[in-house]
């Protein structure tokens, strides 16, 4: 005998403005099996929840339907309220009257009728709900952090300091990321490497952190609290235990003209190399694609000169399996290559460079030892033009968003240029100046007032070369409303921040959502910035969206705190909405015929075999069995089963059929 309680929420005016909530409650009260029906302004509030709890106790309710917002919002809230009143939480369902009804329709009879239909559907479902109990799984208190930039470093240090094991995986030979490529950081003009390298060393020395560089995620299986990650440790061709980091091999390597990735192509490196002097770990790797030995079978000079015999040409990639409880994705971003903009001449004219390349020029350990020099002839530019928004905020180029950091770093670049080239003239073509952080506006003012940087509000239409100079054709919309032509010696394009090239593939490996720009999706844009829709996987840094260093560090600590919260319990409660193969008494035992179609359908290998034996031990039947620890509750097996022997709790065949019938029949 069902005694369902129906609670219709006004949600302030969000629902009641377009839906006649009183009528919905009244109609619900007429449904067979509904013992109590009411409406209230804010069901999720304290008094609202008290109302539910009281009704459960006073009316002896066997089920609850709350007609309010999306269950993705408040299902846990109402289920908890029911639990507190002594009703099994899985006897509570929500009808989505807000996101799917009141917010998307105008006030009308049809809207109210739709709300009534939706409530009725869930009432019929709840009548068939059964009490369910959470499944407890143990939590592996080890975290996997993917990406060794400042985000990954910060997250690793926080989790490790809380006493948990961390494995930090970085695909490049050294950690540090883009921050290690910067010369100085805004708004303080701190030397980037000076503030970063102590953290890098801390990571390497921390007893709780295992650092795996030159390694990538190959596969991720399992679920929150119990992931199994397979890491591919690419062959460095070096025995790290023997290597002392003396660097002799690097000085003797005959292949010296490989464009250095760290120096953004402006400098060269050898085939056996360390990306930059402060690399952590400070041990080289051999770039197989460019090494004479690997490509042509010659050389081996490094092996000859290595004092400890650490070179290992026979080293292969190694696959390592890790058991972890949580994953933090901190894979960072990339800078768009503006060769897609022929009007700017990037790639055609050597002296048109990106902002990141300018950082390397300005860097004291960079290819020009900190002097701003033209890549074409090494001369110092007397006039330099910076083009802001080169690609960003431009739907025609495919990047409608703002890359956030460029206004600040362009101001910084212009300031650094003025500091280094006394008497030089710098110009910035901008659309807006976005300097919203702490001390950011003052920083930009400094550039204008103290360093005499010329800001021109207008876009650049074309850059071309004439007599060794770069002619920049733009417009000044603010002061003169006239076209402007500048003969520059060098042009720096603040090109858009984009997702890393491997981002989509990584997201698919981890079943994490991503948007159309391949940035990873947060679970909620306002309230869940560090979680993803995949439980147990968190986000930190620019892989989620372009952001500066202070925000990255804050987000990384946020992700770390979520991991620490997860690890604060020994056991995790899993939703019991999983599949179950039916069992019945002898002689049937189960309608399952043992075809195991379900096993082949399950993406989690959660369905195995069970042998049903008689008292003599003779096997009567081989049937399917679901492992409750692995089943994720997708229900694919249920749709496969031809004998309808497997069903999923919370979305059973009976329940879904009842919902369909209830939705389409409004009598």
């Amino acid at each position, binding site marked *: 005998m069902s005694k369902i309680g129906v609670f219709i929420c006004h949600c302030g005016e969000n629902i009641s403005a377009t839906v006649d909530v009183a009528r919905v409650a009244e109609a619900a009260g007429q449904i067979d099996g509904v013992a109590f029906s009411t409406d209230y302004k804010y069901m999720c509030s304290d008094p609202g929840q008290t109302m539910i709890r009281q009704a459960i106790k006073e009316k002896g309710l066997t089920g609850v339907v709350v007609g309010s917002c*999306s*269950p*993705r919002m408040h299902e846990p809230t109402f289920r908890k309220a029911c639990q507190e009143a002594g009703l099994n939480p899985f006897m509570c369902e929500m009808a*989505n009257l*807000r*996101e*799917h009804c009141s*917010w*998307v*329709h*105008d006030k*009308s009879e*049809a*809207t109210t009728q*739709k709300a009534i*239909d*939706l409530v009725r*559907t869930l009432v019929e479902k709840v009548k068939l709900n059964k009490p369910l109990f959470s499944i407890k799984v143990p939590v592996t208190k080890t975290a996997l952090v993917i990406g060794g930039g400042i985000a990954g470093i910060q997250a690793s240090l926080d989790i490790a300091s809380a006493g948990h094991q961390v494995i930090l995986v970085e695909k490049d030979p050294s950690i540090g990321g883009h921050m290690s490529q910067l010369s100085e950081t805004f708004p303080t003009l701190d030397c980037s490497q000076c503030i970063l390298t102590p953290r890098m060393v801390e990571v390497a020395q921390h007893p709780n952190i295992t650092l795996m560089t030159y390694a990538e995620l190959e596969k991720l299986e399992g679920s929150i609290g119990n992931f199994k990650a397979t890491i591919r440790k690419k062959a460095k061709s070096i025995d790290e235990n023997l290597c002392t980091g003396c660097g002799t091999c690097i000085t003797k390597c005959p292949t010296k003209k490989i464009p250095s990735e760290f120096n953004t192509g402006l400098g060269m490196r050898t085939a056996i190399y360390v990306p930059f002097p402060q690399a952590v770990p400070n041990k080289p790797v051999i770039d197989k694609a460019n090494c004479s030995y690997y490509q042509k079978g010659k050389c081996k000079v490094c092996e000859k000169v290595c004092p400890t015999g650490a070179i290992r040409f026979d080293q292969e990639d190694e696959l390592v399996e890790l058991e972890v409880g949580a994953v933090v994705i901190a894979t960072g971003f990339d800078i768009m290559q503006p060769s897609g903009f022929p009007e700017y001449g990037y790639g055609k004219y050597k002296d048109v460079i990106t902002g990141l390349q300018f950082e390397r020029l300005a860097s004291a350990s960079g290819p020009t030892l900190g002097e701003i020099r033209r890549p074409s002839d090494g001369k110092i530019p007397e006039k330099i033009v910076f083009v802001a928004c080169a690609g960003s905020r431009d739907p025609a180029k495919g990047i409608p968003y703002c890359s956030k950091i460029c206004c600040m770093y362009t101001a910084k670049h212009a300031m650094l240029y003025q500091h280094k080239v006394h008497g030089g003239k710098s110009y910035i073509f901008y659309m807006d100046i976005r300097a919203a952080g702490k001390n950011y506006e003052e920083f930009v003012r400094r550039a204008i007032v103290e360093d005499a940087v010329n800001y021109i509000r207008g876009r650049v239409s074309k850059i071309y070369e004439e007599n060794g100079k770069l002619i920049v054709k733009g417009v000044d919309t603010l002061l003169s409303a006239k076209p402007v032509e500048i003969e520059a010696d060098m042009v720096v394009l603040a090109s858009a921040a984009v997702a890393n090239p491997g981002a989509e593939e990584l997201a*698919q490996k981890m*079943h994490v*959502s991503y*948007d*159309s720009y391949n940035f990873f*999706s947060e679970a909620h844009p306002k309230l869940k910035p560090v979680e993803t*829709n*995949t439980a147990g996987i968190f986000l930190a840094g620019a892989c989620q969206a372009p952001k500066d260093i202070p925000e990255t560090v804050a987000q990384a600590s946020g992700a770390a705190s979520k991991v620490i919260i997860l690890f604060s319990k020994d056991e995790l409660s899993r939703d019991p*909405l999983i599949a179950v193969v039916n069992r019945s008494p002898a002689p049937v035992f189960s309608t399952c015929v043992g075809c195991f179609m379900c096993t082949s*359908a399950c*993406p*989690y290998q959660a369905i195995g075999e069970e042998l049903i034996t008689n008292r003599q031990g003779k096997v009567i039947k081989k049937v399917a069995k679901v492992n409750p620890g692995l089943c*994720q*509750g*997708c*229900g*694919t097996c*249920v*749709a*496969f089963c031809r004998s309808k022997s497997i069903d*999923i709790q*919370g*979305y059973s*065949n009976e329940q*879904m*059929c009842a*919902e*369909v*019938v209830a*939705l*389409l*029949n409004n009598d």
Partner: protein
Amino acid sequence: MTEFEPKIIAFVCNWCTYAGADLTGTSRIKYAQNVKIIRFPCTGRIDFMLLLKSFGEGADGIIVSGCHPNDCHYTSGNFHARRRWIMFRGLLDMLGIDVRRIQYSWVSAAEGSKWADIVNSTVNTIRELGPYTEYEKVAGYLEKEGKE
């Protein structure tokens, strides 16, 4: 003579389309009232006999929507659903049921406006196709047979 208002039922997956429809709501994008959603954990869960059941219960049109290929929260549920749909579509066609009455789509959690577009275009299509009356004819025939 009131204009025919189609009755359309939507089977959507919790992780993508349901969330996408939530986003439509959060973004306050308006669409036709004729579509009502039933939540599934995954499109892979959808037993396609439920689609036939829906027509039998008076639905004029059906929307089935889930995650984009490669983005399924449960890895492969949507692939199974897609394969099922391809087979089922052929079967429906053979039975004489107009497959235009079923709209199969992928809507991600970020595609709020796409969900609204799909709802509106499906409603228009079903409106043009008219009410689904074939099942009634069969049911009437069966009833008549039963009496004899």
